[in-house]
């Protein structure tokens, strides 16, 4: 008799999702699915809008990573305009994107995942939150809050708003950077270094105590993809895409936004509103791959900044080839946060950073354009078609969470097979299965959703629909 276990909603994620675990007649886990249960429709309602509105409209997709949508969207518009943006505009955008990456990584690591790491996977769920972290380690809590403020404040300084800044536009940015704002950002750098260093040192100590989780948290060979510079260093805003195979061999390189669809396909499954991206030459689902911090660190040869470079060298020692366990997303996330701070400091020392020429202007010169950028949780591609008046006739977005979708599902199945025993699951098992998804830091929805007030009910049903077991949080 087959049975199912449902985890609904999955907690401490950005958005609403649920997990269903299917048991076979012997009570063994047969399959598992991670469902994203909300539908958005941005690609549809963008149709008919002027292309130059797209960055502002698309930023509303997300309250955590709106900057990445702004940038990918603006770049798609610039492809339609056929313009190259001024150097200073590009540098300022890069800084904005890095600031967002730092604050988003701080949210993911400190607010969502550090409760498990600090208090334990089996700890009281009522304390597995930022209050629990603050009570157990005020120093770590302050570091998390401080790092998030750092990123948010830079976004606010540059874009006048912490969420959905309108500063990034097709052609560049609307305002140059003032000396006062540059100095204000520079003044925050030392504290940000101290906070991320504290977190990295702490994480490296505790990671060894999670060997069991490392073994089964989406720990399998896969492809990896991310943006990279010509010198093979990490990149979040420009550059081109590289894909490596499970052995670390480069199988695609120099993928520009306009070539994206040559390489990446999208499949749909009837149990989720999130699409499943795959590498076309291998087909679906064999061509599933991972994006985000783990993938980015797996594809690059260097970070391009001194402190992060040292941390990358240590990270690469975790495996002979690509680092496979998604548990290591946490480690990669902190290294990227360190890189972000260093790179922001570097950008601010650019002699042209206060230059007033920050925007290029043009009309419609092409009827199709695509743009790509790295969101904190992975690669993001915006692809638009317009009519001769610049009205959007078609849009497609490939977001990071969709690109990680297959790996997340495989990871949930791997963990479920390990932790669900004898048709039963413990609180700790449930948390670990959720924690697999958290390692990817998926962004299932946007700023308008508040997940924290929803109850969590786990139900074990018989094939006849009879409730066999139930846990309520």
């Amino acid at each position: 008799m087959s049975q199912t276990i449902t985890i609904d909603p999955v907690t401490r994620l950005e958005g609403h999702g649920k997990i269903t675990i299917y048991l076979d007649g012997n009570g063994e886990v047969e399959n598992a699915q991670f469902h994203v249960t909300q539908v958005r429709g941005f690609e549809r309602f963008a149709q008919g809008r002027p292309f130059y509105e797209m960055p502002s409209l698309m930023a509303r997709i997300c309250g955590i990573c709106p900057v990445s949508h702004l940038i990918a969207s603006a770049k798609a518009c610039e492809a339609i305009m056929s313009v190259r943006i001024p150097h200073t505009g590009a540098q300022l955008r890069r800084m904005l994107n890095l600031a967002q990456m730092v604050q988003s990584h701080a949210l993911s690591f400190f607010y969502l995942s550090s409760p498990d790491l600090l208090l334990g996977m089996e700890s009281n769920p009522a304390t597995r939150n930022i209050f629990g972290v603050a009570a157990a380690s005020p120093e770590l809590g302050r570091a998390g809050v401080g790092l998030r403020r750092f990123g948010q404040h830079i976004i606010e300084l540059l874009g006048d708003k912490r969420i959905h800044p309108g500063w990034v536009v097709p052609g560049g940015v609307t305002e140059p950077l003032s000396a006062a704002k540059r100095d204000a950002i520079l003044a925050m750098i030392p504290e940000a270094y101290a906070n991320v260093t504290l977190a990295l040192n702490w994480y490296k100590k505790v990671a060894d105590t999670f060997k069991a989780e490392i073994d089964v948290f989406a720990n399998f060979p896969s492809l990896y993809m991310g943006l990279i510079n010509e010198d093979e260093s990490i990149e979040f805003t420009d550059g081109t895409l590289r894909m490596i195979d499970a052995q670390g061999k480069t199988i695609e390189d120099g993928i520009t936004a306009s070539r994206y669809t040559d390489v990446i396909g999208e499949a749909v499954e009837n149990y989720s509103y999130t699409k499943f991206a795959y590498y076309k030459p291998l087909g679906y689902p064999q061509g599933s791959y991972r994006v985000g911090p783990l993938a980015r660190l797996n594809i690059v040869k260097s970070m391009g900044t001194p402190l992060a470079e040292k941390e990358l060298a240590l990270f690469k020692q975790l495996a002979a080839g690509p680092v496979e366990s998604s548990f290591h997303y946490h480690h990669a996330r902190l290294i990227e946060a360190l890189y972000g701070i260093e790179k922001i400091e570097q950008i601010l020392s650019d002699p042209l950073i206060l230059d007033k020429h920050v925007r290029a202007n043009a009309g419609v010169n092409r009827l199709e354009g695509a743009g790509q950028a790295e969101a904190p949780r992975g690669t993001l591609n915006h692809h638009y078609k317009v009519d001769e008046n610049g009205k959007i006739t078609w849009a497609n977005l490939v977001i990071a969470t969709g690109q990680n979708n297959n790996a997340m599902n495989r990871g949930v199945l791997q963990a479920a097979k390990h932790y669900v025993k004898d048709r039963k699951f413990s609180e700790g098992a449930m948390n670990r299965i959720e924690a697999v998804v958290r390692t990817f830091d998926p962004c299932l929805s946007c700023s308008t959703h508040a997940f924290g007030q929803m109850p969590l009910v786990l139900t074990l049903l018989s094939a006849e629909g009879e409730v066999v077991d139930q846990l309520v949080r």
Partner: protein
Amino acid sequence: MNLTRARCLILACGNTLRSDDGVGPWLAAWAQERFRDEPGVLVVSRHQWTPELAQDVSSSESVLFIDCSAESAPGAVQLLAVSPTGETQALATHHLDAAQLLALGRTLYGSLPANALQLTIGAGSTELGEEFSAPVRAALPIACLKLEEAVALLLRNKERSL
């Protein structure tokens, strides 16, 4: 880092696209204008109160929280003292209440404002829309008066009462 150290921090929250939920930001804008020549008063309006604000709250001499209330009668204006005794078991990533912010600030930074008050206005509607319901519209003058009184009280009273 962008740390707010105000004699009186006015901290409002609400969504201006959800009818009466926007009364917090509306009152914050009103306070910004009313107290623009008062250097000790700092007004911050947010969509939601997030954990990062705990640092600003804990380092201010006094705080006036402003929000709409789903529990009060539509248009009812209340000014109450608030203490760091909030429920801290929620997931608390994107939204905290006033008591939780005080509690988190105390835990993380070891300090509290000397006084904290909360001004609430009972919501009649939080449906999509940019206009207030009739009860909330009618209550705005009273809310402004209460807000003025609260700020005067907080600026006058420096003794720790929390």
